[in-house]
Structure formats: structure tokens, C-alpha cells
């Protein structure tokens, strides 16, 4: 079991109903964890539609997670 700190933004924040989570998981990768959360909170975006940031940097979906990681899933951006 590892503990992951999650922050949620935009549509994922709305679906989650809060800004952050301290989440206990056995998921190996960022992608695995996303699938777990997607099922739990019915996130409307597939892994292909999003990116992930780990500890403040864009990262690959198959990055391995470790306890204490800060993870943010990034819906399609639309600045400007």
C-alpha cells in the first residue's frame, strides 16, 4: 500500500467534488491509479485524453508511483 497525494482541477475536480485527496492505493503506475479513480468517481475522460504530472512535472502514464508522490491528472487544457 502506498499513499498518494492527489490534486484535482477543472472537470476532474467537479466530478471528484473536492480539490484533493490523500489516497491509499496498490496501483503500480500513474495510469493504473487513474483507472482506479476513473471507476470510483466516474471520470468522463479516458487515459488518452489526459496527461499526468508527478511531483510538479509532466510524466509518462507508465511512471511507477511511490508513497508520498504528488499526482495531478490534467484534462485537455484551454488557456488563452
Amino acid at each position, binding site marked *: 500500500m502506498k499513499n498518494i497525494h492527489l*490534486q484535482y*482541477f*477543472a*472537470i476532474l*475536480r*467537479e*466530478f471528484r*467534488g473536492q480539490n484533493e485527496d490523500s489516497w491509499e492505493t496498490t496501483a503500480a503506475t500513474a495510469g493504473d491509479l487513474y483507472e482506479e479513480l476513473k471507476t470510483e468517481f*466516474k471520470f*468522463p*475522460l479516458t487515459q488518452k485524453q489526459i496527461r499526468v*504530472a508527478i511531483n*510538479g*512535472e*509532466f510524466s509518462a502514464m507508465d511512471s511507477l508511483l511511490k508513497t508520498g508522490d504528488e499526482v*495531478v491528472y*490534467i*484534462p*485537455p*487544457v*484551454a*488557456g*488563452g
Partner: protein
Amino acid sequence: MKANLFQLTSQSFQAHHFVREMENHAAGAYTSFEGWVRNHNEGKDVASLEYEAYPDLALKEGCRILAEALEKFDIIDSRCIHRTGHLQIGEIAVWVGTTAKHREEAFTACRYIIDEVKSRVPIWKKEHYADGDSGWVKCEHCASHIHRH
């Protein structure tokens, strides 16, 4: 050291305060882009907008884009300010300014920066429509789900 050249602000702003900071006697060309909040988008009447940012990564990625522009183009300076929070029609959502010796490079860099900012910086835009509906831009197919919340 270039960390403050890309800024996020929750306050309404006018660009000319920032232009003054770019004054440089070697610069012959200043080019700017401003994104203004429009009253419509894709056939819908827009009443207001909300921008939400992931601040840590938005600042990092924004600064990276400005650094890339400095490296790719023969410019003197470039800056970008992006609003967050609730914006009314007509407000400035984003400002990009570039200075260069010559206009060619100033234009190209300015265009590069706004294109990259829009596609890479973790900022999201929610449109509030005149009919009371709302939706996250670039997330149209999720719209049917949003209404449950």
C-alpha cells in the same frame, strides 16, 4: 531568474503597465497579443468565463515556453500574463508581449508563445452561457456528464 516573466493573476489588468517594463532602447519592434473574453463561442452566447490553473506547473511550463521563444527567435524580451478566476465579457484573459530589433521576429515569437501557451499550459476554461448552461472548453463530449453536478 526568468521566473516572473510568466505570471498568473486573479486581478483584472491592462497591458500597458507591463509594456513599460519591456522598454529597451535596442528594441525597434513590439508585438502583442491579447485574448479578450468574447460574448459568444461556437454559436452559443457566453455570459462569463472561468479560468482555473494548476499554478505550480502552469508557471513552470509558461516560463519554459518563454525561454524557448528566446532561444528560437532573435528577440530581446518576451512576457506573458494569464488571468485566473471569474472573468466578464471584454476582460483580458491573456497578454503576450515580445520585443525585438525587427518586426519579423517579434511577430513570429509572439505567435509561437500564444500557440504554445494555449496548448501546453495547464489552464482550463469554463464557459458560462447566457442560457444558464456551462461547459469546460476542449471537453465538449464530457458536457452531457457535467450537468449531473
